[in-house]
């Protein structure tokens, strides 16, 4: 007997109780208790994102993004060459004296500009989907991650985010990454240090 069959047979002989209809349970997508409704999603999102050590800049329109980014880079004393998801290549980066490229991320890249599928107010979290035009490494390898999100894309909870994803795409992409602030470690003496292996800084530009 294969290991698979042996394990499953053992489980079957030990299980008590009626068998559940697996497909029915899945279709129900029952949600657990969720937080009470938030008065203002944007406010909650910003507050929580800041608590996680992300920086949040709010801008009027898409076209104001490069300026906000330039301001941040200047403030942080960072280089002005960035990787960028293709969806933002049309913006006037040149005018903000930032050079952007949409190539495959390499470990030396310092700044990665991405969008986000949506954002979650409960925890100040970004939800990114992997894909051809949305490589996961852009939000991972560079030391600075800049994410551009529209205010309308802020949902209350992760459950809402799943519902939105099912509506938009049906199936899951290879990787769904929920990002909540810069990477951190507390392994040495339980003291939190920002910038472990992932980005050390996260800027969220809210449109």
């Amino acid at each position, binding site marked *: 007997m294969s*290991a698979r069959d*042996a*394990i*499953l047979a*053992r*489980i*079957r002989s*030990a*299980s*008590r*109780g009626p*068998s*559940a209809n*697996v497909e029915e*349970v*899945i279709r129900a997508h029952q*949600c*657990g*208790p969720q*937080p009470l409704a938030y008065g203002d999603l944007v406010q909650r999102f910003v507050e*929580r994102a800041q608590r*996680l050590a992300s920086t949040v800049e709010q801008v009027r329109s898409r076209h104001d993004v490069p300026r906000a980014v330039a301001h941040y880079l200047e403030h942080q004393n960072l280089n002005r060459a960035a990787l960028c998801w293709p969806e933002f290549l049309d913006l006037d980066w040149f005018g903000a004296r930032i050079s952007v490229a949409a190539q*495959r*991320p390499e*470990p030396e890249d310092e700044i990665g500009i991405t969008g986000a599928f949506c954002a979650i107010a409960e*925890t100040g979290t970004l939800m990114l989907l*992997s*894909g*051809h035009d949305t*490589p*996961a*490494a852009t939000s*991972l390898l560079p030391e600075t991650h800049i994410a551009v999100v529209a205010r309308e894309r802020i949902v209350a909870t*992760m*459950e809402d985010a*799943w519902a939105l994803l099912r509506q938009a795409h049906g*199936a*899951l992409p*290879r*990787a*769904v*990454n*929920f*990002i*909540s*602030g810069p*990477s*951190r*470690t*507390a*392994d*040495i*003496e*339980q*003291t939190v*240090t920002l*910038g*472990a*292996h*992932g980005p050390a800084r996260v800027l969220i530009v809210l449109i």
Partner: protein
Amino acid sequence: MQVTALRFKRKAKQNLRNARLQSALSKIQVRFVQARADAIADLDDFEAVRQRATAIREGVLANLDAWLERFEQEATRRGAVVHWAETAADVNRIVIEIAQANQVKKAIKSKSMVSEECALNDALEAAGVQVVETDLGEYILQLAHEAPSHIVAPVLHKTKDEVSDLFAKKHDLPRKTGIAELCREARDILRPHFVSADMGISGGNFLIAETGSVLLVTNEGNGRMTTTLPRVHVAITGIEKVVPTLEDATTLVRILPRSATGQDITNYVSVLTGVKRADESDGPEQFHIILLDNGRSAMLGTELQSMLRCIRCGACMNHCPVYQSVGGHAYGWVYPGPMGSILTPLYAGLANTLPLPNASTLCGACAEVCPVSIPLPDLLRELRHRQSTQDLRPWRERLGLRVWMWLALRPLWFARATALASRVGHRLGGAKHRLRWLPGAGGWTHGRDLPAPAGKTFRALYRARKPR
């Protein structure tokens, strides 16, 4: 990893005298206990979330076979390969086979307690594959050739200075003293490995049956690197980790980091499904998922089934007065604290782990904080019961219990014996009314005195009262 639980007492004694370790352990109170309390208070209704989390885990266990099959079917459909392993040795064999089939020279790992359970690193190294741990804590342990002492914070037992010394020696770089500098150094040293590795090995916090996905929670970003950059990804996890839907996984994610480190959410929660698509620039070309049994299925349908709900948050050890005093290494295997005191005996056998179920005061703090309501003290008591019925306890204890049972079943003799004991105890207590030593319970009276009996039993006093 070899089980050394029989040496619990000796190790505990040493650890109690180890000032460095005690200073490291003293951090638990603020960093974990207080942090958890704050994060729990931040939830509108922790108890409701906990009940739902418990129901989800229990529901899966009631039909574990069906959920595993559903998971396998969906994962396979998305291009992953699902392997089943009966034992730790099987896991190692499967990983080595995958490595050899893909000419893997170097593997990077993110933290996985199940791989610790298998001692996978040693097996891979023996097969000629270089393994690099990339979680900072696990990396430190790999350099120091030590075992983790906590399931969430593996180097809890080490101080910053010890890490400074270790890095200076192993990296051949000037000694750094700040924690941030040390982290930076590890980042710089590990980065090239991420890019050059052929294989990434991770654990899996949850398996999602609905989508065939593996869910990972991490803080450092190394988990994302491990599962994004190398061309082969192997995720190793226990068969009990499956949950039905994304919503269910969400409920558990709401409670896991809060219980573990007091975070609302970990920095990264990654839901990984299938392999890199043709048009994608990153992601693994192969995704192997290894499901390990290693004694888990044998717990189903027994008094210990609830232990399979465990989501490895570590709250039970953080809140355990014994763990807080003796640290994780005393428990002698991969899983320490209350949860380990149950899992290790089931893995290594009751006889090889005698001290563990007794290394608890049964104060109940663990059960109170467990996010999936595992009645840990009841399970410990069950293991004690098994030790006793299998005649694994020392003869003096067994004899004592036998005598007690004989008395307890005979009210008249019981009354006489307790009256005598009370009188003698009262005498021995002297003017201070304290017993400084009890025959056969030296360990108990070593650190404290027992109030002496009053000289008369309750029954005698009751009889002496005039009826109204």
